[in-house]
């Protein structure tokens, strides 16, 4: 009798599991097919309504102004306003790619897998979303709000030189001040989460903590530099004959 109920229970459990894990056929391939049909339909309508751009034939002697990168790289081009090419075009994108790859090894919080769970992983969510948003923001500004010589124009403005682009003189902060400021930025950045006893900081070992904070400080240096440049007209924090930052 007891054996029978146990077997019946097992069978029921198995049946439940199967119900939660339904057959892939036919539902999933059908959904995929429908997705493909909708995407193909959208693409064809898009292609009927809008022609792929084709400018005049390439003429190396006639510079295009503005010469815009395709939209997915325009974020980096926009960052060129704030950093020299070695950083915005090479080092920063490399850090971004390596940083993205590092995420799974830095985030040890086991919660929120396979579900949209914001509250269980606030720290990861907030910082990733800010980074993602900055990327999109740079793309939108670069794509829609930059005109000749990369001057700022609202999307509804015509690209003329009607005078609201007064030449701004930029200045460099002297290196000593900057190094001290950057050191304070780094020290505060490293110490604050631990001092405030933030939960995520408590759960990270030192290696992961150091790498996480370093990457985040580098990420937030971008908006910091944007503010310094746009509001305080700072060109470089560090200026040397070899390298500027």
């Amino acid at each position, binding site marked *: 009798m007891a054996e029978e109920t146990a077997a019946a229970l097992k069978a029921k459990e198995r049946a439940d599991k199967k119900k*939660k*894990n*339904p*057959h*892939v*056929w*036919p*539902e*999933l*391939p059908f959904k995929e097919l429908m*997705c*493909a049909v909708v*995407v*193909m339909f959208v*693409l*064809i309508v898009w*292609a*009927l309504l*809008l*022609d*792929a751009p*084709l*400018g*005049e*034939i*390439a*003429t*190396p002697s*006639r*510079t*295009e102004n503005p*010469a*815009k*990168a*395709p*939209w*997915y790289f325009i974020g*980096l081009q926009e960052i060129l306003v704030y950093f020299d*090419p*070695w950083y915005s*075009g*090479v*080092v920063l994108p490399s850090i971004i*790619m390596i940083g*993205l*790859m590092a*995420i*799974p090894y830095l*985030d040890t919080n*086991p919660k*929120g*897998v*396979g*579900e*949209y*769970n914001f509250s269980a*992983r606030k720290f990861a*969510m907030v910082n990733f979303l800010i980074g993602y948003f900055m990327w999109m923001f740079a793309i939108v500004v670069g794509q829609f709000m930059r005109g000749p010589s990369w001057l700022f124009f609202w999307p509804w403005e015509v690209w003329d030189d009607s005078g609201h682009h007064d030449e701004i003189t930029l200045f460099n902060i002297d290196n000593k001040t900057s190094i001290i400021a950057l050191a304070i930025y780094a020290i505060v950045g490293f110490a604050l989460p631990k001092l405030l006893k933030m939960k995520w900081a408590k759960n990270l070992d030192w290696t992961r903590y150091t790498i996480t904070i370093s990457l985040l400080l580098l990420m937030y240096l971008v908006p910091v530099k944007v503010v310094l440049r746009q509001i305080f007209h700072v060109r470089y924090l560090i200026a040397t004959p*070899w*390298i500027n930052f």
Partner: protein
Amino acid sequence: MTLKEKIMASQIWKSIFRHDFEDTPSNRGKVIRSNVFLHLHPLRIPEHAMKIRFTWCMGGITFFAFLVECITGILLMFYYHPVIEYAYMDMKYLQFDVPFGQILRNVHRWGAHLMVFTVMLHMLRVFLTGSYKRPREFNWVIGVVLLTLTLLMSFTGYLLPWDQLAYWAITVGTNMGAATPFIGVEGPFAIVDKFNDVRFVLLGGTTVGANALLRFYVAHVIAIPAIVFVGCAIHFWRIRKDGGISRPL
């Protein structure tokens, strides 16, 4: 016996389809198992994973866009010469002379934009569902590689029409190569000259020219797509090896 029954009983049919199509649990398994493409799927998956509101179907759409690009790309290759004497003329030829040439080019161009856009959204979805966490860490890494390759694939294609937009966008882009620290001629601490730095490797020259067009063409039509294809194979295989699509504990 009707004709249909005869055909379905024939040796030829049976050699191709090894099961009948009655909707039974066993056949549902066999359909998936006996088809190499459908076999990318497991036989059963959790209910939530089939919901479009969970995956947004974004990985799937990215892959579909890639396939569309492969097919339209191969068709375009019949009309395109990667040399500066012809490249631009071929675009005009496609637009004004080739039957359906304009729409072919349009689908290829907008499909590329779509793929970049959906891969970005796919990454966002994977992040939001925490799907990169153990044991899926490495598949996320492969994903980031695929993201980079997707961007490069689009970027190399951008030069091929050989118009002003393309020429100057690629000039701006590859000048970044020259700014690389140490191995770019204009970069900090340069230890190279302009004939052996990063930009030279990218362009096969110091400026965008015939060699650059050829390099970008080869990268665009074969080198990068081949790597993306292998990358996707690993990506999909890993989804299953890592325990299937992510689910709540």
